[in-house]
């Protein structure tokens, strides 16, 4: 499997899609996490709204980085990671390369394991890069505003990185599964995006009308991701400076358990289909 991991890492790191997704995610993170909050903070200061100014400053502060980094993942970050994973597995069918790998390469499950391990390495890279960029952006903004720098504790950082990896990992597993189910990149990425950005929100809206749907919508992948982000300190979409997709439906431990369960199920289905179906 080591050969597969090495090969897939080579593919993912040389692949323009990986860098485009990483760049877009970092840009969105800085834009929505710091630029807009900074503008809102200045507005609040000039209009004398001290409460709002204090809330926004807390979000911009380095101590708020674990929450800020995580709160963008349930919706936009998750969608980007899902597309990356769907394209990475789906492309092998689209370009016929899985056929060659399955014929003369390692066993199918080793090839699948190599792809998932390489995706995991890329996700760790994206999360660590987000952390570094967010800390730097926060420090620059706070210094420019002549505010004291309050750093997060190691425990808070670990919680933020762990939560971000769990949310991104679950969406990546979903994307990888869709790429294999659809045997191509376009349909899988499209279906995944519709689910993440539209279907879950619609279902949550409908559950407000039909109470019977609530037990289902409370345990959807996006709900679990949003709940974990909220448990880490993310601000819900209905509040000032909050992020869409962040919800307070499940407790942190329940959300983390559910996310792990979804990731495992998605990978089992993906591995089974890859091993059993024709390339």
């Amino acid at each position, binding site marked *: 499997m*080591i*050969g*597969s991991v*090495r*090969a897939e890492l*080579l*593919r993912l790191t*040389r*692949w*323009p*899609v990986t860098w485009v997704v990483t760049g877009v995610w970092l840009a969105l993170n800085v834009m929505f996490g710091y630029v807009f909050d900074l503008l809102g903070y200045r507005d609040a200061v000039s209009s004398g709204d001290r409460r709002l100014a204090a809330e926004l400053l807390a979000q911009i502060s380095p101590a708020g980085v674990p929450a800020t980094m995580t709160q963008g993942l349930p919706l936009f970050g998750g969608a980007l990671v899902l597309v990356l994973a769907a394209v990475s597995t789906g*492309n092998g069918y689209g*370009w*016929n*390369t899985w*056929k*060659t*790998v*399955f*014929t*003369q*390469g*390692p*066993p199918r499950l080793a090839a699948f394991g190599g792809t998932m391990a390489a995706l995991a390495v890329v996700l760790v890279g994206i999360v660590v890069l987000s952390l570094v960029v967010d800390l730097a952006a926060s420090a620059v903004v706070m210094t420019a505003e002549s505010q004291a720098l309050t750093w997060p504790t190691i425990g808070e950082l670990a919680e933020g990185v762990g939560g971000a990896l769990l949310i991104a990992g679950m969406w990546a597993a979903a994307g990888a599964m869709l790429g294999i189910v659809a045997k191509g990149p376009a349909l899988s990425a499209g279906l995944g995006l519709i689910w993440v950005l539209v279907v879950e929100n619609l279902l949550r809206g409908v559950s407000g009308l039909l109470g019977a749907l609530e037990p289902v919508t409370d345990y959807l992948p996006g709900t679990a991701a949003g709940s974990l982000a909220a448990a880490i300190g993310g601000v819900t979409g209905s509040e000032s400076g909050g992020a869409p997709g962040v919800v307070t439906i499940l407790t942190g431990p329940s959300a983390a358990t559910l996310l792990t369960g979804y990731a495992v199920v998605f990978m089992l289905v993906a591995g089974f289909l890859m091993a059993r179906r*024709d*390339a």
Partner: protein
Amino acid sequence: MDTAVEVRELVIRRGGREVLHGISAQIQRGVITGLLGPSGSGKTTMMRAIVGVQVVRSGRVTVLGRPAGSPALRRTIGYLTQSPSVYADLTVRENVRYFASLYGIASDDADQTIRDVGLADQARQLVGTLSGGQHSRASLACALVSRPELLVLDEPTVGQDPVLRDELWKRFRQLADDGATLLVSSHVMDEANRCDRLLLIREGEIIADDTPAAVKAAAGTDDLDQAFLTLVRNRTEEGS
């Protein structure tokens, strides 16, 4: 001479119809065997059965002493599919190094393979921007990079210019001289003269299994195109 591939009474159905009708053949080790026949005669299906990706209805395919498709055969077979199987959004070098990494082969060997197929000048070019012939050669490099014992090449010279086709055949000859077994399909009869042995296939049946000289002698002509037509005619007369 050793047998690399043995096909015995192979029957295959694809798309609801029988494509191969109980064919039997042997492919000898260390030689170039040409699998020739018109489009739709069953060449690709037979190759798929040999590399182990085709469901077999009945019969047996043995490759290097093991049943076709055995996991142990994976590293010993190189398969070039008819449509190129490379990532169009990676460069030639990145594609070949990707497959080299799968087999634990050094980057230098991957670069040598790129030179072998005449793509040294295009190594840094995205595969999606290559011409059709260059695209096929990029795919060929990926099949060759593991230095397999058995190379199954489905129409590797289609779309190549005559100079390059000549170079590729010299390369195939070199590989055979070094001990590799090559099964090369083509529907171009003039390429048959470059093979050590020929399997002529038509409508899912082997109509000749011999050396090019013997095939021509049996048909009483020096022209392989003509020989193929004569053998088809003789077979039709035998059947009627």
